[in-house]
C-alpha cells in the first residue's frame, strides 16, 4: 500500500534520482529505457542528467515508468503537457521493432517447436492460426508506422495536414487482442495429451509476456499519444483560425 501511495505522489520516480535505481522498481523499465533511446553506462548520474545526454525528455521516461509499474495509471494534464510527443513516437516505433524483430520471432520459434511434436493435422491448425494472428498484428503496426506516426510528426513540427485527424485512429486493436488471448486459451487448454509440457509452457510464457507488453503499448497509445495529439491539433487549429482572421482584418 505504501508503494501505491508513493506512485501516486510521484515519489517512486523523480528526475533527481539515480538512473541506475529506476529499474529496481520494475525490471521491464530496462526495455523502456532502450526503446526511448537511452544507453547504458549511467554511472552515478541522475535521471535528468542521463536523459539530457541522450536527448530524451525525462518526464516522458517517468510517465511511461509509472504506467509500467501501475496498471491503469491515469496521467495528469500536467504530466502530459510536460512529456514529449516525439519521444513517445520514438518509444512506440522502437516497441514495434522489438515486437517484429524479437518478441514475435521468439514466440514463433516456440510455436514451431511445439507444433513440430504434434501430428500433421494439429500442427497445421496451430501454425495457421498463429500466422493469421501475425499477419493481422503486422498490418496494424504498418498502419501506425505509415499513417499515424508520420501524421503526429507533422503535428509536432507545427503542421496540420488536412487528410487525417487523430479521431480517425480508431481502435483497430481489439480483434488482434482477442486473437492473442484465444491462442493462449487454445494452447493452454486443448493441446493433445502427447504434447510436451515444457514446450507448451514456453509458448504460454511467451504469450503472457507479449500480451502484457502489448497492453502497456496500447495503453500508452490510447492514454498518452492520442490525448497529446488531440491537444496539439486543437492548438494548431486555433492558431490557423486566428491567422486567417488576422489576414482578413489586414485586407
Amino acid at each position, binding site marked *: 500500500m505504501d508503494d501505491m501511495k508513493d506512485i501516486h505522489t510521484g515519489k517512486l520516480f523523480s528526475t533527481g534520482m539515480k538512473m541506475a535505481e529506476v529499474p529496481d522498481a520494475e525490471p521491464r523499465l530496462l526495455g523502456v529505457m532502450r526503446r526511448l533511446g537511452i544507453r547504458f553506462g549511467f554511472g552515478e548520474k541522475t535521471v535528468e542528467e542521463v536523459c539530457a545526454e541522450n536527448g530524451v525528455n525525462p518526464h516522458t521516461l517517468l510517465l511511461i515508468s509509472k504506467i509500467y509499474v501501475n496498471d491503469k495509471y491515469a496521467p495528469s494534464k500536467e504530466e502530459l503537457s510536460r512529456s514529449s510527443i516525439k519521444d513517445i513516437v520514438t518509444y512506440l516505433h522502437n516497441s514495434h521493432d522489438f515486437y517484429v524483430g524479437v518478441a514475435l520471432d521468439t514466440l514463433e520459434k516456440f510455436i514451431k517447436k511445439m507444433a513440430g511434436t504434434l501430428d500433421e493435422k494439429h500442427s497445421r*491448425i496451430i501454425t495457421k492460426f498463429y500466422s493469421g494472428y501475425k499477419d493481422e498484428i503486422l498490418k496494424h503496426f504498418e498502419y501506425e508506422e505509415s499513417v499515424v506516426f508520420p501524421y503526429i510528426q507533422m503535428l509536432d513540427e507545427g503542421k496540420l495536414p488536412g487528410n487525417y485527424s487523430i479521431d480517425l485512429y480508431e481502435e483497430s486493436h481489439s480483434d*488482434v*487482442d482477442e486473437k492473442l488471448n484465444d491462442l493462449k*486459451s487454445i494452447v493452454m487448454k486443448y493441446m493433445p495429451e502427447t504434447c510436451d509440457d515444457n514446450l507448451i509452457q514456453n509458448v504460454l510464457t511467451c504469450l503472457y509476456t507479449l*500480451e502484457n507488453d502489448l*497492453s502497456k*503499448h496500447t495503453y500508452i497509445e490510447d492514454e498518452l499519444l492520442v490525448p497529446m495529439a488531440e491537444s496539439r491539433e486543437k492548438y494548431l487549429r486555433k492558431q490557423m483560425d486566428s491567422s486567417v482572421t488576422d489576414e482578413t482584418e489586414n485586407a
Partner: protein
Amino acid sequence: MKLKMREPIRKILILEPSVLIAEGLRHVIDNFAGYDVCGIIRNQEGDIWAKIDDFNADLVIADPSVFDNRDRAGAHDMIKGIANAPVMALISTAADASYASTYDGTIYLSDTSDDIEQKISTVMKAAPAEQRGEGEELSSREKEILVCVAKGMLNKEIADHFNISIYTVITHRKNITRKTGIKTVAGLTVYALLNNLIDMNAME
C-alpha cells in the same frame, strides 16, 4: 490491449427499504472483486416481480421487510423462482430473524465486510452450475452452434437453421466464449477442428 476479466462479473440485486443500509451494502460489495450491484429495489410498489426479473441478477440479497407482511413468508421462493438465482436474506430487524432459515444465506447488520464476502462466495459456490452461469463442457446444442460459427454462418442464418430466436443464438455464443475462453471466429474454428467437431477438409 486491456487485460480482460476472465471470470464474469456476478450481478447482485439488493432489495432493501432503508437507503442507508442499501447504499452501505452497495459500497461494501463494490470493494469485492468479481461482484457488481446491478440494482436496488426499495419497496414493493408496482410489479416488484417484473422488476426483479428485469435485473437478470446472479444473486439477490433481500431484506424481508421490503415485502408486505402477507408476502414476507413466501418471498424467498417467489424471488428464487423469478430470478433463477440464489437469494440471501438481509436481516435488519429482529422481527425478521425468523425468516433467515428459509434463505440460501443470511447477512446481518453486524457482519464485517470480510464476513459478507465470505458468505456471498459460499452461497455462489453452492448454487447449481446453471445459476452460477458456469457450465463446464459445451452442451450438444452449443457444439452444433459452434460448428455453424466455424463454418462462417451469421447469427441470423444460425437462428433460421435451428428455428430459434437470434437472441438465443447470441446467448449460446456468449456461453461458448465464456466456457472456452475463445472469442474470435478463427479461434472458435481452431477449437472445433482440434476437438474433431469439424473436418479440416470441410474448411478448405
